[in-house]
């Protein structure tokens, strides 16, 4: 009897030890539910083959991504060892202790020179210019455009366009041309519309569309170093940029008041619009004939320049950070060492991920690999981001509240909307004592 109990206890102990060993050899990465997350799972399977460490990419729908991540942070939970967080989260992730400081890791691997500068500044560094790093650029992304190349190249359309506007119909070089083309193709009686833009205001959709227009009109959201917004977010250039975005909305399909990536891709796949704004990460579906019946007639271009030649695109994409509450930080660090290797970055790009590796992005092989890679590369050289301060969610909500009624509802003027944003943001920065810190 006693021997039986001893055997049972030994077996239980062995099982417990084995379970713990197995747990130590597993890593969990948390990301949003979209195609790049599937590509990442494919990529990390190689890491499992090489090291025996099982890596799982756990996902949740975009709408729930931020809430779920920060809920886990609030609980100081170790459910995720790494998180592929939005660029705007850097402030909260770093100053509130959720992310592990990767500055030494960055320097050890000379990553400032490995990755494209804009991606280092956008996905890894906080505060701006501090050379303190909290993430490794993982999925580069920017807001670009898809267009109906077949409509643009139709000789009848070309002739009609030239007769009306006095120049050749082609990929728009500036916002004026973008507006003209949108107007030209706006034909509600044919169920054909000019342009599909972001209008959803539940997260950062409308903000991304508007900010890149404001940037390209020579305006800005504020001074990211001093938090000054007065005279910047409501400057003449910013107002003109917002007016231009509002003008574009007039040429969108009916009911386009809640449009984000899904709707904007549908505008192309359903043959609704001539041009459609979207993040590059969503363009593979448009180049694929099984998901887009017009794939062969679809082209892509980077956000056009503004009237003064200023040229910007809104930064999308994410960096991968180690969660400070993870009990497997060393294993996560080893994984990142594997991830930043040139060979891994190459494979990541081949699988469909948007690598931020400078060498790969600049290579002709990458730029010619897909119909949208060249536009992506051009966009990544001119990306600019939203505020990444810890209170970014409040800033975003305040911006949404002011922009939406003007753009979609046609209420008030662009100046009134941006004066309102200026007042709200100043109040919020005061609340967080941003000015007294300076």
């Amino acid at each position, binding site marked *: 009897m006693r021997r039986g109990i001893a055997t049972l206890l030994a077996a239980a102990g062995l099982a417990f030890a084995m379970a713990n060993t197995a747990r130590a050899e597993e890593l969990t990465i948390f990301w949003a539910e979209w195609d790049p997350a599937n590509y990442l799972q494919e990529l990390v399977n190689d890491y499992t083959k090489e090291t025996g460490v099982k890596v799982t990419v756990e996902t949740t729908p975009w709408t729930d991504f*931020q*809430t779920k991540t*920060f*809920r886990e*942070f*609030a609980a100081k939970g170790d459910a995720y060892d790494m998180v592929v967080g939005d660029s705007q989260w850097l402030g*909260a992730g770093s100053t*509130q*202790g*959720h992310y592990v400081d990767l500055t030494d890791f960055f320097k050890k691997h000379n990553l400032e020179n490995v990755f494209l500068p804009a991606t280092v500044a956008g996905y890894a560094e906080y505060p701006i210019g501090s050379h303190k790093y909290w993430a490794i650029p993982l999925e580069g992304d920017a807001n670009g455009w898809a267009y109906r190349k077949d409509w643009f190249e139709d000789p009848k359309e070309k002739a009609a366009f030239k007769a009306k506007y006095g120049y050749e119909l082609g990929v728009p070089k500036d916002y004026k041309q973008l507006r003209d083309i949108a107007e030209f193709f706006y034909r*509600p009686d044919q*169920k054909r519309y000019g342009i599909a833009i972001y*209008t*959803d*205001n*539940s997260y950062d959709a409308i903000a991304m569309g508007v900010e890149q227009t404001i940037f390209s009109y020579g305006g800005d959201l504020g001074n990211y170093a001093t938090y000054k917004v007065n005279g910047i977010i409501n400057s003449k250039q910013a107002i003109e940029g917002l007016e231009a975005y509002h003008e574009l909305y007039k040429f969108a*399909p*009916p*009911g*386009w*008041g*809640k449009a984000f990536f899904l709707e904007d891709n549908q505008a192309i796949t359903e043959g609704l619009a001539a041009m459609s704004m979207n993040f590059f990460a969503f363009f593979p579906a448009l180049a694929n004939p099984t998901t887009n019946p017009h794939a062969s007639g679809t082209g892509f271009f980077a956000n056009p320049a503004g009237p003064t030649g200023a040229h910007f695109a809104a930064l999308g994409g994410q960096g991968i950070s180690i969660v400070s509450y993870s009990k497997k930080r060393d294993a996560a660090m080893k994984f990142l060492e594997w991830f930043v290797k040139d060979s891994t970055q190459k494979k990541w790009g081949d699988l469909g991920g948007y690598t931020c590796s400078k060498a790969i992005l600049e290579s002709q092989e990458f730029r010619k690999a897909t119909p949208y890679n060249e536009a992506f590369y051009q966009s990544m050289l001119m990306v600019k981001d939203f505020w990444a301060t*810890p*209170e970014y*969610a*409040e800033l975003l*909500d305040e911006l*949404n*509240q002011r922009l*939406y*009624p003007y753009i*979609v*509802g046609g*209420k008030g003027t662009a100046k009134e909307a941006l004066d309102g944003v200026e007042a709200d943001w100043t109040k919020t920065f005061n609340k967080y004592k941003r000015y007294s810190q300076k």
Partner: protein
Amino acid sequence: MITKLDVNSAASARGLTDITIRNLFILPTIAFLIIFNIFPLIYSLGSSFYDYSAASNQPAVFVGLQNYRDLLASPYIWSNFSITAKYVLVSVGGQVIVGFGIAVLLNRVIPFKGLITTLLLLPMMMSAAVVGLFWQLLYSPSWGPINYVFGLGDFPWLSDPTAALYAVAITDIWMWSPFVMLLSLAGLSAVPKHLYEAAAIDRASGWYTFSRITLPLVAPLLLIAIIFRTMEAFKTFDIAYVMSVQPTTELIAIRLYKLAFQEWQTGRSCALAYIMLIMVLAITNIYVKYLNQVKAR
């Protein structure tokens, strides 16, 4: 001969008194209530007096009534309350008219009455998120059947700042009118038939019979339905959140969600939750007082 039974004997034999057994049944419920209801209620009340973010790793700072003052001085919050009030009025008003109307129609001998009643109850058995998504399709400007049936062309129901709230309210009316119908039907079937017979002998008009007999007798149950629906409509989150992202459809519950889980202003969101609680209690009290008056008549 009546034998006095020792009710404790069986339990006592096993070492358990009636009081112990009673406590064993009650204690888990009380523990559950304390852990999941009372403790969070008190904890959130305490949190509402602090500048505190659950996600920030920063210590909470006591600010007294500052959160309440800021919220009540915020034009956004008042705008959310005003949107909610309009929504409650339209939604509950519509549910009472439609629900009571259907109940009156069903309160007679008609073929397949049971089947019709069951079918009419289906909407309220569905998930609110599913109903929201379903109606989003019905409202689609390009190919939605609503615009087609009413000949409204490409009218963008859910993107139009004015129409969006009414579109959401119509969906809520569709979903919850059956609830009002059910309670009204219970009230209507309890009205004594002899009152109608007496009214018929006196040659009372249809309206007179309805306003002097039907309505007063159904009123208590109808008021209970209104109390429940007002409380629920005031807290509406799911349908509005799924259907529209307009600032004009941002009900107070959506604002609370954003404060708590998007902006992580934990202290302030607790304060807003308490403001909402006080408002719901005040509205309910007014209804209950009126209900008592109706019952006393």
